Protein backbone atom coordinates (compact mmCIF):
# COMPACT_ATOMS: atom_id res chain seq x y z
CA UNK A 1 0.00 0.00 0.00
CA UNK A 2 1.88 3.02 -1.19
CA UNK A 3 0.85 6.65 -0.91
CA UNK A 4 -0.57 6.83 -4.42
CA UNK A 5 -2.96 3.97 -3.76
CA UNK A 6 -4.07 5.51 -0.49
CA UNK A 7 -4.83 8.80 -2.26
CA UNK A 8 -6.79 6.88 -4.88
CA UNK A 9 -8.73 5.10 -2.15
CA UNK A 10 -9.53 8.39 -0.44
CA UNK A 11 -10.73 9.92 -3.73
CA UNK A 12 -12.82 6.81 -4.50
CA UNK A 13 -14.53 6.92 -1.12
CA UNK A 14 -15.16 10.66 -1.49
CA UNK A 15 -16.74 10.19 -4.91
CA UNK A 16 -18.94 7.36 -3.60
CA UNK A 17 -19.98 9.61 -0.70
CA UNK A 18 -20.90 12.38 -3.15
CA UNK A 19 -22.92 9.89 -5.21
CA UNK A 20 -24.86 8.93 -2.11
CA UNK A 21 -25.28 12.54 -1.00
CA UNK A 22 -28.49 12.91 -2.97
CA UNK A 23 -30.04 10.00 -1.08
CA UNK A 24 -28.74 11.28 2.23
CA UNK A 25 -30.26 14.69 1.56
CA UNK A 26 -33.60 13.31 0.44
CA UNK A 27 -33.75 11.01 3.44
CA UNK A 28 -36.09 13.42 5.19
CA UNK A 29 -38.74 12.66 2.62
CA UNK A 30 -38.04 8.93 2.48
CA UNK A 31 -38.38 8.45 6.23
CA UNK A 32 -42.11 9.06 5.97
CA UNK A 33 -42.50 6.52 3.16
CA UNK A 34 -40.52 3.91 5.06
CA UNK A 35 -42.49 4.36 8.25
CA UNK A 36 -45.70 3.72 6.39
CA UNK A 37 -44.37 0.55 4.82
CA UNK A 38 -42.70 -0.64 7.99
CA UNK A 39 -45.75 -2.36 9.48
CA UNK A 40 -46.36 -5.05 6.89
CA UNK A 41 -43.09 -5.72 5.12
CA UNK A 42 -40.35 -5.52 7.68
CA UNK A 43 -39.03 -8.98 6.94
CA UNK A 44 -38.20 -8.05 3.35
CA UNK A 45 -36.25 -4.86 3.92
CA UNK A 46 -32.97 -6.58 4.70
CA UNK A 47 -31.28 -5.88 1.38
CA UNK A 48 -31.91 -2.18 1.48
CA UNK A 49 -30.17 -2.01 4.83
CA UNK A 50 -26.91 -3.00 3.26
CA UNK A 51 -27.14 -2.20 -0.39
CA UNK A 52 -29.65 0.59 -0.51
CA UNK A 53 -32.39 -0.80 -2.72
CA UNK A 54 -35.82 0.67 -2.28
CA UNK A 55 -37.85 -2.29 -3.47
CA UNK A 56 -36.61 -5.22 -1.51
CA UNK A 57 -39.57 -7.41 -2.39
CA UNK A 58 -38.32 -7.89 -5.95
CA UNK A 59 -34.66 -7.75 -5.00
CA UNK A 60 -33.61 -5.27 -7.65
CA UNK A 61 -35.64 -2.97 -9.80
CA UNK A 62 -34.40 -1.02 -12.78
CA UNK A 63 -35.30 2.26 -11.12
CA UNK A 64 -32.54 1.57 -8.61
CA UNK A 65 -29.81 1.73 -11.22
CA UNK A 66 -29.03 5.29 -10.20
CA UNK A 67 -27.77 3.87 -6.94
CA UNK A 68 -25.52 1.43 -8.76
CA UNK A 69 -23.46 4.26 -10.24
CA UNK A 70 -20.88 3.59 -7.54
CA UNK A 71 -19.93 0.37 -9.38
CA UNK A 72 -18.19 2.47 -12.05
CA UNK A 73 -15.99 4.33 -9.55
CA UNK A 74 -13.54 1.62 -8.31
CA UNK A 75 -12.45 0.56 -11.86
CA UNK A 76 -11.93 4.24 -12.63
CA UNK A 77 -9.32 4.68 -9.90
CA UNK A 78 -7.91 1.15 -9.53
CA UNK A 79 -8.45 -0.13 -13.07
CA UNK A 80 -4.89 0.76 -14.13
CA UNK A 81 -3.18 -0.53 -11.00
CA UNK A 82 -1.72 -3.62 -12.68
CA UNK A 83 -2.11 -2.85 -16.37
CA UNK A 84 -0.43 0.57 -16.48
CA UNK A 85 2.46 -0.62 -14.31
CA UNK A 86 3.00 -3.57 -16.62
CA UNK A 87 2.67 -1.47 -19.75
CA UNK A 88 4.79 1.52 -18.74
CA UNK A 89 7.28 0.20 -16.20
CA UNK A 90 7.08 -3.58 -16.52
CA UNK A 91 10.72 -3.81 -17.51
CA UNK A 92 11.69 -1.93 -14.36
CA UNK A 93 9.60 -4.15 -12.09
CA UNK A 94 10.71 -7.49 -13.47
CA UNK A 95 14.40 -6.75 -13.50
CA UNK A 96 14.15 -6.51 -9.72
CA UNK A 97 11.66 -9.31 -9.15
CA UNK A 98 11.96 -12.45 -11.23
CA UNK A 99 8.83 -14.15 -9.97
CA UNK A 100 5.95 -12.64 -11.88
CA UNK A 101 3.41 -14.80 -10.04
CA UNK A 102 4.40 -13.40 -6.66
CA UNK A 103 4.16 -9.83 -8.00
CA UNK A 104 0.72 -10.51 -9.49
CA UNK A 105 -0.64 -12.26 -6.40
CA UNK A 106 0.56 -9.41 -4.21
CA UNK A 107 -1.08 -6.80 -6.47
CA UNK A 108 -4.33 -8.77 -6.69
CA UNK A 109 -4.50 -9.20 -2.94
CA UNK A 110 -4.04 -5.47 -2.41
CA UNK A 111 -6.85 -4.86 -4.91
CA UNK A 112 -9.03 -7.31 -2.96
CA UNK A 113 -8.34 -5.37 0.23
CA UNK A 114 -9.27 -2.09 -1.48
CA UNK A 115 -12.46 -3.71 -2.79
CA UNK A 116 -13.29 -4.84 0.75
CA UNK A 117 -12.82 -1.31 2.10
CA UNK A 118 -14.98 0.16 -0.68
CA UNK A 119 -17.71 -2.44 -0.12
CA UNK A 120 -17.67 -1.86 3.64
CA UNK A 121 -17.90 1.90 3.11
CA UNK A 122 -20.80 1.63 0.67
CA UNK A 123 -22.73 -0.86 2.77
CA UNK A 124 -22.18 1.17 5.93
CA UNK A 125 -23.38 4.32 4.17
CA UNK A 126 -26.53 2.56 3.03
CA UNK A 127 -27.08 1.04 6.45
CA UNK A 128 -26.71 4.46 8.06
CA UNK A 129 -29.42 5.83 5.79
CA UNK A 130 -31.88 3.27 7.07
CA UNK A 131 -30.45 2.75 10.53
CA UNK A 132 -33.69 3.22 12.38
CA UNK A 133 -34.49 -0.33 11.40
CA UNK A 134 -33.10 -2.76 13.90
CA UNK A 135 -29.71 -3.48 12.32
CA UNK A 136 -28.56 -5.30 15.44
CA UNK A 137 -31.14 -8.03 14.96
CA UNK A 138 -29.47 -9.30 11.77
CA UNK A 139 -27.10 -12.17 12.55
CA UNK A 140 -23.45 -11.52 11.75
CA UNK A 141 -22.96 -14.42 9.22
CA UNK A 142 -25.65 -12.94 7.01
CA UNK A 143 -23.99 -9.52 7.04
CA UNK A 144 -20.64 -11.19 6.33
CA UNK A 145 -22.07 -12.99 3.28
CA UNK A 146 -23.50 -9.73 1.91
CA UNK A 147 -20.21 -7.88 2.41
CA UNK A 148 -18.34 -10.80 0.79
CA UNK A 149 -20.60 -10.76 -2.26
CA UNK A 150 -20.38 -6.97 -2.73
CA UNK A 151 -16.59 -7.12 -2.30
CA UNK A 152 -16.29 -9.79 -4.98
CA UNK A 153 -18.55 -7.76 -7.31
CA UNK A 154 -16.27 -4.72 -7.00
CA UNK A 155 -13.17 -6.92 -7.31
CA UNK A 156 -14.45 -8.54 -10.53
CA UNK A 157 -14.98 -5.15 -12.18
CA UNK A 158 -11.55 -3.88 -11.10
CA UNK A 159 -9.76 -7.02 -12.29
CA UNK A 160 -11.64 -7.05 -15.60
CA UNK A 161 -10.61 -3.46 -16.19
CA UNK A 162 -6.99 -4.39 -15.42
CA UNK A 163 -6.85 -7.48 -17.62
CA UNK A 164 -8.42 -5.77 -20.64
CA UNK A 165 -6.16 -2.78 -19.96
CA UNK A 166 -3.06 -4.93 -20.43
CA UNK A 167 -4.02 -5.44 -24.09
CA UNK A 168 -5.86 -2.26 -25.06
CA UNK A 169 -4.89 0.39 -22.53
CA UNK A 170 -6.62 1.47 -19.34
CA UNK A 171 -9.25 3.60 -21.09
CA UNK A 172 -10.69 0.72 -23.08
CA UNK A 173 -10.33 -1.43 -19.95
CA UNK A 174 -12.53 0.94 -17.96
CA UNK A 175 -15.08 1.16 -20.78
CA UNK A 176 -15.29 -2.63 -20.97
CA UNK A 177 -15.75 -2.90 -17.20
CA UNK A 178 -18.56 -0.32 -17.25
CA UNK A 179 -20.31 -2.06 -20.15
CA UNK A 180 -19.94 -5.38 -18.31
CA UNK A 181 -21.58 -3.82 -15.25
CA UNK A 182 -24.40 -2.46 -17.44
CA UNK A 183 -24.93 -5.88 -19.05
CA UNK A 184 -25.07 -7.47 -15.61
CA UNK A 185 -27.70 -4.96 -14.50
CA UNK A 186 -29.75 -5.86 -17.59
CA UNK A 187 -29.30 -9.57 -16.85
CA UNK A 188 -31.09 -9.13 -13.50
CA UNK A 189 -34.48 -9.14 -15.24
CA UNK A 190 -33.60 -12.05 -17.54
CA UNK A 191 -33.96 -15.85 -17.12
CA UNK A 192 -30.21 -16.30 -16.54
CA UNK A 193 -30.02 -13.82 -13.69
CA UNK A 194 -27.99 -16.23 -11.54
CA UNK A 195 -24.81 -15.36 -13.45
CA UNK A 196 -25.29 -11.62 -12.91
CA UNK A 197 -22.80 -10.26 -10.38
CA UNK A 198 -25.23 -7.47 -9.52
CA UNK A 199 -28.09 -9.88 -8.86
CA UNK A 200 -25.78 -11.84 -6.57
CA UNK A 201 -25.35 -8.71 -4.42
CA UNK A 202 -29.05 -8.39 -3.59
CA UNK A 203 -30.44 -10.36 -0.71
CA UNK A 204 -33.79 -10.70 1.00
CA UNK A 205 -34.28 -11.07 4.71
CA UNK A 206 -36.10 -14.39 4.46
CA UNK A 207 -33.52 -15.92 2.14
CA UNK A 208 -31.95 -19.15 3.35
CA UNK A 209 -28.26 -19.44 4.12
CA UNK A 210 -27.85 -21.91 1.25
CA UNK A 211 -29.22 -19.43 -1.31
CA UNK A 212 -27.00 -16.67 0.03
CA UNK A 213 -23.95 -18.91 -0.08
CA UNK A 214 -24.72 -19.90 -3.69
CA UNK A 215 -24.94 -16.22 -4.68
CA UNK A 216 -21.63 -15.38 -3.02
CA UNK A 217 -20.15 -18.58 -4.48
CA UNK A 218 -21.05 -17.65 -8.06
CA UNK A 219 -19.39 -14.26 -7.60
CA UNK A 220 -16.39 -16.02 -6.07
CA UNK A 221 -16.16 -18.40 -9.02
CA UNK A 222 -16.18 -15.54 -11.56
CA UNK A 223 -13.56 -13.71 -9.51
CA UNK A 224 -11.36 -16.82 -9.36
CA UNK A 225 -11.68 -17.33 -13.11
CA UNK A 226 -10.64 -13.73 -13.75
CA UNK A 227 -7.73 -14.10 -11.35
CA UNK A 228 -6.53 -17.20 -13.22
CA UNK A 229 -6.92 -15.48 -16.59
CA UNK A 230 -4.91 -12.53 -15.33
CA UNK A 231 -2.19 -14.85 -14.05
CA UNK A 232 -1.94 -16.56 -17.44
CA UNK A 233 -1.74 -13.20 -19.22
CA UNK A 234 0.91 -11.80 -16.87
CA UNK A 235 3.11 -14.87 -17.18
CA UNK A 236 3.03 -14.88 -21.00
CA UNK A 237 3.05 -11.14 -21.70
CA UNK A 238 6.13 -9.78 -23.42
CA UNK A 239 7.39 -6.54 -21.95
CA UNK A 240 8.55 -3.33 -23.52
CA UNK A 241 7.30 -3.93 -27.07
CA UNK A 242 4.18 -1.79 -27.11
CA UNK A 243 2.88 0.84 -24.73
CA UNK A 244 -0.79 -0.15 -24.54
CA UNK A 245 -1.63 3.22 -22.98
CA UNK A 246 -1.22 4.87 -26.38
CA UNK A 247 -3.32 2.42 -28.36
CA UNK A 248 -6.87 3.75 -27.98
Amino acid sequence: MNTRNLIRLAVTLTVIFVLNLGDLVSLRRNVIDFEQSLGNDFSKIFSQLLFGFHRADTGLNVSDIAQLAFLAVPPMFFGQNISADLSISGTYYFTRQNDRTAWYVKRSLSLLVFSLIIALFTCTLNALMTSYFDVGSIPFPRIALVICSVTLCVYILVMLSNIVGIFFGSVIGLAVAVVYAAVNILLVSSPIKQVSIVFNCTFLADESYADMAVKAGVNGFIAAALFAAGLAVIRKRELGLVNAEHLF
Partner: protein
Amino acid sequence: MNSFRTQLRIMLHKRGFQIGFTVMMLFVAYSFVRGMYYVSLDPERGADISNLQAVDRALLNKTNESYGIPQILRFIFPFVCVLPFSFSLFIDRSTRISDIVIARSGKRRYYFSKLAAAFAGGFIIFFIPLLISTALTHIFCSSSIINVFDINFSELTAGGKEFFTMGDLMLELITFSPALGELFAALLLSVYAGACAMLALALSYFFRRFAVFIFVPVFLLCKLFELWESMIKVDCGYMYLRIDPLKYSVISSDNPYYGRPYWIPAAEIAVIIAVSAGIMLFASRRDQLQ
Protein backbone atom coordinates in the same frame (compact mmCIF):
# COMPACT_ATOMS: atom_id res chain seq x y z
CA MET B 1 -11.72 23.44 -42.32
CA ASN B 2 -8.94 21.33 -43.77
CA SER B 3 -7.55 20.81 -40.30
CA PHE B 4 -10.98 19.83 -39.00
CA ARG B 5 -11.38 17.32 -41.80
CA THR B 6 -8.03 15.76 -40.91
CA GLN B 7 -8.99 15.48 -37.23
CA LEU B 8 -12.35 14.00 -38.19
CA ARG B 9 -10.63 11.36 -40.26
CA ILE B 10 -8.33 10.51 -37.37
CA MET B 11 -11.33 10.32 -35.04
CA LEU B 12 -13.22 7.90 -37.26
CA HIS B 13 -10.25 5.53 -37.21
CA LYS B 14 -9.73 5.64 -33.44
CA ARG B 15 -10.24 2.41 -31.59
CA GLY B 16 -12.20 4.24 -28.88
CA PHE B 17 -14.71 5.51 -31.43
CA GLN B 18 -15.15 2.10 -32.97
CA ILE B 19 -15.63 0.35 -29.63
CA GLY B 20 -18.03 3.03 -28.35
CA PHE B 21 -20.07 2.91 -31.54
CA THR B 22 -20.24 -0.88 -31.39
CA VAL B 23 -21.44 -0.74 -27.79
CA MET B 24 -24.17 1.75 -28.65
CA MET B 25 -25.31 -0.33 -31.63
CA LEU B 26 -25.46 -3.43 -29.43
CA PHE B 27 -27.66 -1.59 -26.96
CA VAL B 28 -29.91 -0.45 -29.80
CA ALA B 29 -30.20 -4.04 -31.00
CA TYR B 30 -30.93 -5.25 -27.47
CA SER B 31 -33.55 -2.57 -26.93
CA PHE B 32 -35.25 -3.45 -30.22
CA VAL B 33 -35.23 -7.21 -29.67
CA ARG B 34 -36.45 -6.81 -26.10
CA GLY B 35 -39.25 -4.46 -27.10
CA MET B 36 -40.45 -6.85 -29.79
CA TYR B 37 -40.01 -9.99 -27.67
CA TYR B 38 -42.33 -8.83 -24.90
CA VAL B 39 -45.22 -8.23 -27.26
CA SER B 40 -44.88 -11.45 -29.20
CA LEU B 41 -45.01 -13.50 -26.00
CA ASP B 42 -47.83 -11.69 -24.22
CA PRO B 43 -50.74 -14.18 -24.24
CA GLU B 44 -53.37 -11.69 -23.13
CA ARG B 45 -52.85 -9.39 -26.05
CA GLY B 46 -53.54 -11.97 -28.73
CA ALA B 47 -53.51 -11.15 -32.42
CA ASP B 48 -56.08 -8.34 -32.44
CA ILE B 49 -55.15 -5.39 -34.59
CA SER B 50 -55.61 -2.96 -31.71
CA ASN B 51 -52.75 -4.72 -29.93
CA LEU B 52 -50.17 -3.92 -32.55
CA GLN B 53 -46.98 -2.61 -31.09
CA ALA B 54 -46.77 1.15 -30.72
CA VAL B 55 -44.07 2.80 -32.72
CA ASP B 56 -41.84 4.06 -29.93
CA ARG B 57 -42.02 0.97 -27.72
CA ALA B 58 -38.64 -0.40 -28.68
CA LEU B 59 -36.91 2.96 -28.76
CA LEU B 60 -33.63 3.39 -26.94
CA ASN B 61 -34.61 6.46 -24.93
CA LYS B 62 -38.23 5.64 -24.14
CA THR B 63 -39.04 5.22 -20.46
CA ASN B 64 -40.36 1.80 -19.65
CA GLU B 65 -39.91 0.22 -16.25
CA SER B 66 -39.69 -3.35 -17.46
CA TYR B 67 -36.86 -2.78 -19.93
CA GLY B 68 -34.65 -0.34 -18.09
CA ILE B 69 -32.89 0.90 -21.20
CA PRO B 70 -32.90 4.66 -20.45
CA GLN B 71 -31.46 3.97 -17.03
CA ILE B 72 -28.72 1.89 -18.62
CA LEU B 73 -28.16 4.72 -21.09
CA ARG B 74 -27.70 7.06 -18.13
CA PHE B 75 -25.30 4.58 -16.54
CA ILE B 76 -22.97 4.31 -19.53
CA PHE B 77 -23.45 7.84 -20.91
CA PRO B 78 -20.49 9.58 -19.16
CA PHE B 79 -18.16 6.84 -20.38
CA VAL B 80 -19.36 6.37 -23.94
CA CYS B 81 -19.56 10.07 -24.87
CA VAL B 82 -15.94 10.66 -23.80
CA LEU B 83 -14.61 7.58 -25.59
CA PRO B 84 -14.40 8.70 -29.27
CA PHE B 85 -11.94 11.57 -29.34
CA SER B 86 -11.45 13.21 -25.93
CA PHE B 87 -8.14 11.41 -25.36
CA SER B 88 -6.50 12.49 -28.59
CA LEU B 89 -5.01 15.70 -27.17
CA PHE B 90 -3.50 13.73 -24.27
CA ILE B 91 -2.01 11.12 -26.61
CA ASP B 92 -0.74 13.73 -29.08
CA ARG B 93 1.01 15.54 -26.26
CA SER B 94 2.52 12.42 -24.74
CA THR B 95 3.79 11.15 -28.09
CA ARG B 96 4.94 14.68 -29.09
CA ILE B 97 2.91 14.66 -32.31
CA SER B 98 1.17 17.90 -31.29
CA ASP B 99 4.43 19.88 -31.58
CA ILE B 100 4.80 18.87 -35.22
CA VAL B 101 1.17 19.53 -36.11
CA ILE B 102 1.16 22.90 -34.33
CA ALA B 103 4.26 23.94 -36.24
CA ARG B 104 2.40 23.32 -39.48
CA SER B 105 -1.11 24.54 -38.72
CA GLY B 106 -0.85 27.01 -35.85
CA LYS B 107 -1.89 26.62 -32.22
CA ARG B 108 -5.40 28.01 -32.27
CA ARG B 109 -6.43 26.14 -35.38
CA TYR B 110 -5.06 22.89 -33.97
CA TYR B 111 -6.86 23.18 -30.64
CA PHE B 112 -10.17 24.31 -32.06
CA SER B 113 -10.19 21.66 -34.77
CA LYS B 114 -9.60 19.10 -32.00
CA LEU B 115 -12.52 20.61 -30.07
CA ALA B 116 -14.81 20.49 -33.10
CA ALA B 117 -13.81 16.90 -33.89
CA ALA B 118 -14.50 15.91 -30.26
CA PHE B 119 -17.96 17.45 -30.52
CA ALA B 120 -18.56 15.58 -33.77
CA GLY B 121 -17.41 12.32 -32.16
CA GLY B 122 -19.71 12.65 -29.14
CA PHE B 123 -22.56 13.71 -31.41
CA ILE B 124 -22.19 10.90 -33.95
CA ILE B 125 -21.75 8.14 -31.42
CA PHE B 126 -25.21 8.84 -29.99
CA PHE B 127 -27.10 10.36 -32.91
CA ILE B 128 -26.60 7.63 -35.50
CA PRO B 129 -27.58 4.72 -33.20
CA LEU B 130 -30.64 6.67 -32.02
CA LEU B 131 -31.51 7.40 -35.64
CA ILE B 132 -31.22 3.70 -36.49
CA SER B 133 -33.32 2.86 -33.44
CA THR B 134 -36.03 5.27 -34.63
CA ALA B 135 -35.88 3.90 -38.17
CA LEU B 136 -36.14 0.29 -36.96
CA THR B 137 -39.17 0.97 -34.78
CA HIS B 138 -40.88 2.90 -37.58
CA ILE B 139 -40.33 0.01 -39.96
CA PHE B 140 -41.51 -2.78 -37.67
CA CYS B 141 -44.15 -1.17 -35.45
CA SER B 142 -47.54 0.32 -36.09
CA SER B 143 -47.73 4.08 -36.28
CA SER B 144 -50.46 6.00 -34.52
CA ILE B 145 -50.69 9.52 -33.26
CA ILE B 146 -50.31 9.24 -29.50
CA ASN B 147 -48.05 6.23 -29.07
CA VAL B 148 -46.19 7.44 -26.04
CA PHE B 149 -49.33 7.09 -23.93
CA ASP B 150 -49.83 3.48 -25.07
CA ILE B 151 -53.10 4.41 -26.70
CA ASN B 152 -53.31 3.19 -30.25
CA PHE B 153 -56.79 4.38 -31.16
CA SER B 154 -55.84 7.82 -32.31
CA GLU B 155 -59.43 8.74 -33.17
CA LEU B 156 -60.43 8.58 -29.53
CA THR B 157 -57.71 10.84 -28.27
CA ALA B 158 -56.61 13.04 -31.12
CA GLY B 159 -59.22 15.64 -30.32
CA GLY B 160 -58.14 16.13 -26.75
CA LYS B 161 -54.41 15.82 -27.10
CA GLU B 162 -53.79 19.00 -25.10
CA PHE B 163 -55.10 17.07 -22.14
CA PHE B 164 -52.19 14.62 -22.50
CA THR B 165 -49.37 16.83 -23.67
CA MET B 166 -50.06 19.80 -21.36
CA GLY B 167 -47.90 22.08 -23.43
CA ASP B 168 -44.71 20.00 -23.31
CA LEU B 169 -42.74 20.74 -26.46
CA MET B 170 -41.53 17.19 -27.10
CA LEU B 171 -44.95 15.61 -26.60
CA GLU B 172 -46.54 18.27 -28.80
CA LEU B 173 -44.06 17.27 -31.50
CA ILE B 174 -44.79 13.56 -30.97
CA THR B 175 -48.53 14.07 -31.29
CA PHE B 176 -47.85 16.02 -34.48
CA SER B 177 -45.45 13.44 -35.89
CA PRO B 178 -43.79 10.65 -33.84
CA ALA B 179 -40.61 10.71 -35.90
CA LEU B 180 -40.20 14.44 -35.35
CA GLY B 181 -40.47 14.17 -31.56
CA GLU B 182 -38.06 11.24 -31.46
CA LEU B 183 -35.56 13.13 -33.62
CA PHE B 184 -35.83 16.10 -31.28
CA ALA B 185 -35.05 13.89 -28.27
CA ALA B 186 -32.15 12.24 -30.08
CA LEU B 187 -30.78 15.63 -31.11
CA LEU B 188 -30.92 16.93 -27.53
CA LEU B 189 -29.11 13.86 -26.20
CA SER B 190 -26.46 13.94 -28.92
CA VAL B 191 -25.71 17.65 -28.52
CA TYR B 192 -25.29 17.16 -24.79
CA ALA B 193 -22.96 14.20 -25.46
CA GLY B 194 -20.94 16.34 -27.85
CA ALA B 195 -20.66 19.12 -25.27
CA CYS B 196 -19.48 16.61 -22.64
CA ALA B 197 -16.86 15.26 -25.05
CA MET B 198 -15.66 18.83 -25.67
CA LEU B 199 -15.39 19.49 -21.94
CA ALA B 200 -13.38 16.30 -21.39
CA LEU B 201 -11.02 17.18 -24.24
CA ALA B 202 -10.51 20.71 -22.93
CA LEU B 203 -9.85 19.54 -19.38
CA SER B 204 -7.43 16.87 -20.63
CA TYR B 205 -5.07 19.78 -21.34
CA PHE B 206 -4.28 19.81 -17.62
CA PHE B 207 -3.60 16.06 -17.36
CA ARG B 208 -0.03 14.87 -17.71
CA ARG B 209 -0.34 11.25 -16.62
CA PHE B 210 -3.04 8.58 -16.35
CA ALA B 211 -5.32 9.11 -19.32
CA VAL B 212 -8.11 7.22 -17.59
CA PHE B 213 -8.74 10.12 -15.21
CA ILE B 214 -10.10 12.12 -18.16
CA PHE B 215 -13.33 10.18 -17.54
CA VAL B 216 -13.71 11.68 -14.07
CA PRO B 217 -14.85 15.29 -14.83
CA VAL B 218 -17.73 14.27 -17.10
CA PHE B 219 -18.79 11.49 -14.72
CA LEU B 220 -18.84 13.97 -11.84
CA LEU B 221 -20.66 16.56 -13.98
CA CYS B 222 -23.46 14.12 -14.79
CA LYS B 223 -23.73 13.04 -11.16
CA LEU B 224 -23.70 16.64 -9.91
CA PHE B 225 -26.65 17.44 -12.18
CA GLU B 226 -28.52 14.53 -10.58
CA LEU B 227 -27.51 15.70 -7.12
CA TRP B 228 -28.66 19.24 -7.85
CA GLU B 229 -32.00 17.88 -8.96
CA SER B 230 -32.47 15.80 -5.82
CA MET B 231 -31.69 18.86 -3.69
CA ILE B 232 -34.53 20.75 -5.37
CA LYS B 233 -36.79 17.75 -4.89
CA VAL B 234 -36.42 18.02 -1.12
CA ASP B 235 -37.42 21.66 -1.01
CA CYS B 236 -40.32 21.58 -3.43
CA GLY B 237 -41.81 18.12 -3.00
CA TYR B 238 -42.36 15.76 -5.90
CA MET B 239 -43.36 18.16 -8.66
CA TYR B 240 -39.96 19.65 -9.29
CA LEU B 241 -37.77 21.15 -11.96
CA ARG B 242 -35.71 19.00 -14.31
CA ILE B 243 -32.05 20.03 -14.20
CA ASP B 244 -30.29 17.05 -15.75
CA PRO B 245 -30.17 17.48 -19.57
CA LEU B 246 -30.26 13.68 -19.94
CA LYS B 247 -33.78 13.64 -18.50
CA TYR B 248 -35.00 16.11 -21.12
CA SER B 249 -34.17 13.61 -23.83
CA VAL B 250 -36.25 10.78 -22.38
CA ILE B 251 -39.55 10.17 -24.14
CA SER B 252 -42.14 9.50 -21.48
CA SER B 253 -45.79 10.22 -20.80
CA ASP B 254 -44.76 11.48 -17.35
CA ASN B 255 -42.99 14.45 -18.90
CA PRO B 256 -45.78 17.02 -18.36
CA TYR B 257 -45.74 16.41 -14.62
CA TYR B 258 -42.33 18.00 -14.22
CA GLY B 259 -41.19 21.52 -14.87
CA ARG B 260 -39.36 21.19 -18.19
CA PRO B 261 -38.48 24.56 -19.66
CA TYR B 262 -36.22 23.73 -22.58
CA TRP B 263 -34.00 26.76 -22.07
CA ILE B 264 -32.41 24.98 -19.07
CA PRO B 265 -30.58 22.22 -21.04
CA ALA B 266 -29.82 24.75 -23.78
CA ALA B 267 -28.21 27.08 -21.24
CA GLU B 268 -26.29 24.24 -19.57
CA ILE B 269 -24.95 22.99 -22.90
CA ALA B 270 -24.01 26.56 -23.88
CA VAL B 271 -22.11 27.06 -20.61
CA ILE B 272 -20.26 23.74 -21.05
CA ILE B 273 -19.26 24.65 -24.62
CA ALA B 274 -18.20 28.15 -23.55
CA VAL B 275 -16.05 26.79 -20.71
CA SER B 276 -14.30 24.28 -22.99
CA ALA B 277 -13.72 26.92 -25.67
CA GLY B 278 -12.30 29.22 -22.98
CA ILE B 279 -9.88 26.56 -21.79
CA MET B 280 -8.75 25.92 -25.36
CA LEU B 281 -8.26 29.65 -25.90
CA PHE B 282 -6.17 29.77 -22.73
CA ALA B 283 -4.18 26.76 -23.97
CA SER B 284 -3.56 28.27 -27.37
CA ARG B 285 -2.13 31.44 -25.82
CA ARG B 286 0.35 29.59 -23.66
CA ASP B 287 3.84 28.60 -24.68
CA GLN B 288 3.93 25.05 -26.04
CA LEU B 289 7.59 24.31 -25.39
CA GLN B 290 7.59 23.97 -21.61
